[in-house]
């Protein structure tokens, strides 16, 4: 039973990975999302999104490095959000 669950877990991941590798095209409006929009969607999912003025540029740089790892953000998302927060503080 244990092995079956582990195998099912690996298969599920493999399917998703194959789905990804096979090159599903990302729609333009997803690619073109602004940092502000991603900030609202990705950050507010779990917690209140603080004002960009709350932290300095260097602090946002550290916070986004942390949140990228903790929340599993894509690199593009993390960079866009960081750029927005730095430009708006």
């Amino acid at each position, binding site marked *: *039973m*244990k092995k079956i*669950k*582990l195998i099912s*877990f690996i298969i*599920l*991941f493999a399917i*998703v990975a194959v*789905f*990804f590798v096979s090159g*599903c*095209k*990302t*729609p333009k*409006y*997803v690619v073109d999302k602004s940092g502000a929009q991603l900030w609202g*969607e*990705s950050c*507010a*999912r*779990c*917690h*209140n*999104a*603080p*004002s960009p003025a*709350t932290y*300095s540029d*260097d*602090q946002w*740089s*550290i*916070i986004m*490095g*942390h949140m*990228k*790892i*903790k*929340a*599993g*953000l*894509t*690199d*593009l*998302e993390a960079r866009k959000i960081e750029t927005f927060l730095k430009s708006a503080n």
Partner: protein
Amino acid sequence: MKKFYVLIFFIGLLVCFSAMAQDSIPITSQVNNPMWGTKKLMITGGAEAVFVSDSSQQGFRNIKFHLAPLVRLGEKLFLISEIEIETKDGVADFGLEQVHLNYAILPDLTVYAGRFLPKFGHYRGMMGEGYLNRFPTDPVGFGDGGIGPLVETGLGIVGGLQMGYSKLNYDFYISNGPHLIANDANMAGNFEYESFLNNNRDMAFGGRVGLLPFANSSLELGLSTLQKTKTGDIHTIYNNVGASWMAYDLSYYHYLTSLKSTVRVYGEYKTMNVDQARYPFDSTVAFKSNKSSAWYVQGSLRPTTFDLQFLNNIEFALRYSKFTTPANAPWGNALINSAGNSIHQWAYGINYWLAWDCLIKFSYQRQSFDGNQFISQVIYRF
């Protein structure tokens, strides 16, 4: 004693970093090595206090304070750490929550190593944190004494991937894994989830995959596992006792225009299956099947865009949770709950956000065996 040495080591590490960098001021000590770039240190953390009132007790309980130094060592290298002091057991307890080094091999693939909070389900390691949890307590089976890993030591990979409209986040790791407890009459058959060292030569494998099917990231479906084929101490008859943990979680976040409110719905179901073993203390009431499960569902509503600021800061929350342990287990619910192996809990909460990072929670809980409780908590995060 080991904890003491680890703490000393960690404080030493902290002092070194503090000497090199002051609160987010970049330094250029590695100017001749462009690989490292500049280093940046930021110390975050938080504090919380709990008040409990029920038929048998009333007073202030757990006080917790934690510091989380984050160090950006370069574009690709990042250190995450956290130490915690809490008074839950009546004395100030120091703990090394996590310290792990992260290196971004690829833009969407980061390798980490050290002591970390494993993503097992959506609650532990994420939504269970005080400023994210809408209640002052954990759902039954999700806190201390519950199911699944709390802290692990090992290495893993983490990242996120865009897949068309959808998004995927993943976290896989190899770690020391939980220890089977065999020689404690009250805990035989259960697990120690916070050990620093391995108790045998076998390693655990675990991970979580989260799928966000909608482009606005409002829904996340997660699947987690932890597997270890040998959980008992080496050179004992329990060495080959294997165990498997699984968790399935869901989270949904949406702004309802009609109600001018933000709605959050969370749910998680998790199980623990342990190979059959006979423990020295269970000769009369051996538990035949060492399987446990726990689940909870929670909803909260915050009227975020009303004209009245006071109303915007209020959040209403409701939660149901259930925890089932094996029959006849010495640590099982049946020993404290005449109704059977399961305990369940209803929790009703009203919270007030003093600021985006400061929250006061008021909760009324009805739990089988424990009866009714009023619990309040104040949380501040910086």
